[in-house]
């Protein structure tokens, strides 16, 4: 989600967000908002049985905030959901369906019928599928979520949550006039969820960290002037709790502030009423340098790129400085209306996710253990001594159905150790898992300090006596332990044993130097911008003698060599 807000455009964004995140925003106000920044076209092919134009028109302003311009194809109303598709493949398929009629007709068989129609669409299109069903009961929606989990790239929107929170989700006057029974309140709520949560969570990588200023941002007052007596208003307490909740969903929190480090330590030590504690922050940069420098340092500690960061500050000048120095960073102005800021965070595109995975939760703890690993490394006499103390365990999962989402996430999100930058989505990963001439491997890593979860993925195919590695990615938080070659070797041993050579595809991206350096080191050859390099197998000899336990966890289907 690259940021196209230039320094001089910060005020444009602040003004746009101020209108968008008022407590109540009307359709007319939404209609008048036009983003002045570049938006990415997103081609959407709908499959529907009623009019949704009232939602779509209202969603344009929200989508603009998410830097998207939705291009909806025309689609007739089709109660049968025939899935007659034509033309170019879209970026997204959307099933938008009111179940009222089909429920009356099919009764208990409705969910199975819906699942069947979703499966048909999944089979004929490789684009992600968003399913928005109007009129389901909460337990039916949940059942459908469960029964479609095995379909890659399919997401059932939590419509019951949205409509259940409204005073009047349906408006009986409208069915005859507009062919849809959703109230205006529901139209606006669905538009906001669609553009700020559901679509960004499907189409763009999730933001990885929120970096917050302190003074006048997460509390009221200036630490240097008010000391520990700065004020935690109820609104600031809510804001801090919201940040905490995001941390619990796997986002890093960090602080950058122009203050004295000792003052900040004293503040958190003396304010037990603050929902946020100092240990909740994965990086803390306090000093008088530029905010962009401090954010860069914090990012290095968190091992993420600034383009994966949302920075919030009360000072538009600081936002402008950061935006100018760190292109791609996301920005929120923490204005005097703290409730408004909280609403903006709640719906900031790229923060919401379709579910908190165990890997999301492990991420924050894993980074916390990094400082201990570094101390062990510094005092160890060599790599084997370091590994003996760390006691790493590598789990190798070959063609794991249950990890398709995570493997796609690794391919989509990993920037630094990403060899060919293929950015595979769930449907493509599913094809690697199911195709007997290809393979997908997920690698889990744990040590005596933490379980890092699934942190690497390899995607390849067989070509006579060779194996071609299309993609090899390792999450940046698993780097630095010297296990890259061992993991690659283990993946190839498990998925493609008996082969004598592996051809590694590689490409050039703005940040994938670590992956390229690994391949150059492993091959002893200087890399072109892109290409394919041959490595002899096994990649590592004597793996069995290394102080690393390797577990082959799964090989769910026979390989056809």
């Amino acid at each position: 989600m690259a940021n196209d807000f230039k320094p001089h455009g910060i005020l444009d964004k602040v003004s746009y967000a101020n209108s968008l995140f008022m407590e109540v925003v009307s359709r007319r106000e939404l209609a008048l908002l036009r983003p002045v920044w570049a938006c990415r076209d997103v081609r959407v092919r709908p499959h529907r049985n009623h009019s949704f134009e009232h939602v779509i028109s209202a969603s344009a302003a929200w989508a603009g905030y998410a830097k998207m311009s939705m291009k909806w194809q025309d689609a007739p109303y089709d109660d049968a959901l025939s899935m007659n598709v034509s033309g170019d493949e879209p970026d997204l398929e959307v099933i938008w369906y009111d179940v009222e009629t089909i429920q009356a007709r099919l009764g208990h068989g409705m969910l199975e019928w819906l699942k069947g129609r979703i499966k048909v669409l999944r089979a004929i299109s490789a684009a992600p599928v968003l399913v928005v069903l109007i009129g389901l009961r909460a337990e039916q929606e949940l059942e459908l979520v469960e029964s479609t989990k095995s379909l890659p790239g399919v997401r059932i929107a939590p419509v019951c949550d949205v409509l259940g929170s409204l005073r009047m989700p349906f408006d009986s006057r409208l069915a005859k006039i507009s062919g849809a029974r959703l109230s205006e309140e529901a139209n606006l709520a669905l538009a906001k969820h669609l553009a700020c949560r559901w679509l960004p969570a499907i189409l763009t990588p999730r933001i990885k960290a929120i970096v917050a200023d302190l003074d006048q941002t997460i509390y009221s007052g200036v630490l240097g002037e008010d000391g520990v007596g700065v004020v935690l208003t109820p609104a600031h307490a809510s804001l801090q709790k919201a940040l905490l909740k995001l941390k619990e969903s796997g986002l890093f929190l960090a602080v950058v502030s122009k203050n004295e480090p000792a003052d900040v330590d004293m503040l958190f030590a003396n304010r037990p009423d603050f929902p946020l504690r100092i240990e909740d922050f994965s990086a803390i940069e306090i000093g008088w340098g530029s905010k962009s420098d401090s954010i860069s340092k914090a990012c290095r500690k968190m091992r993420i790129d600034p383009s994966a960061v949302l920075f919030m500050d009360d000072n538009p000048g600081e936002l402008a400085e950061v935006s100018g120095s760190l292109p791609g960073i996301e920005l929120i102005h923490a204005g005097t209306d703290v409730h408004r800021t909280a609403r903006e965070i709640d719906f900031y595109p790229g923060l919401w996710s379709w579910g908190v995975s165990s890997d999301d939760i492990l991420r924050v703890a894993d980074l916390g253990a990094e400082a201990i690993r570094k101390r062990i490394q510094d005092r160890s006499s060599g790599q084997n001594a370091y590994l003996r103390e760390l006691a790493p365990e590598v789990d190798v999962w070959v063609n794991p159905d249950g990890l398709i989402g995570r493997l796609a996430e690794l391919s989509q999100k990993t920037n630094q150790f990403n060899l060919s930058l293929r950015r595979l989505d769930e449907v493509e990963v599913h094809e690697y898992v199911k195709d007997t001439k290809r393979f997908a491997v997920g690698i889990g890593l744990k040590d005596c300090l933490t379980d890092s979860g699934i942190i690497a993925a390899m995607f390849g195919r067989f070509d006579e006596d060779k194996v071609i590695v299309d993609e090899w990615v390792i999450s940046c938080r698993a780097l630095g332990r010297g296990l890259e070659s061992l993991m690659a070797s283990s993946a190839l041993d498990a998925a493609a044993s008996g082969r004598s050579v592996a051809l590694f595809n590689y490409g050039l991206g703005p940040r994938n130097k670590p992956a390229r350096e690994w391949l150059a080191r492993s091959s002893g050859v200087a890399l072109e911008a892109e290409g394919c390099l041959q490595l002899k197998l096994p990649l590592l000899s004597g793996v069995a003698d290394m102080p690393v336990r390797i577990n082959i966890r799964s090989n769910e289907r026979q390989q056809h060599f």
Partner: protein
Amino acid sequence: MKDSSIFESEVARLASDILGEPIGVDGSRDTVPAWDSLKHVEIIFSFEEAYGLRLTESEMASMRSVKDLADRAMKG
């Protein structure tokens, strides 16, 4: 109390904002192609919100012009 011309100007501006094109006080569904049945509902939504009114189903269907809506707003 506002006279009808003020209501007509307000409603014309409201319809212009929703349709994304200028509409005069004499604008109607018969003269403005963009004012189709779907946009009509959105104009009604915004009209109700602006004047704190709730139209009946038959009113929603029968209001066809800036003037109709301005008269309804004036009636309260």
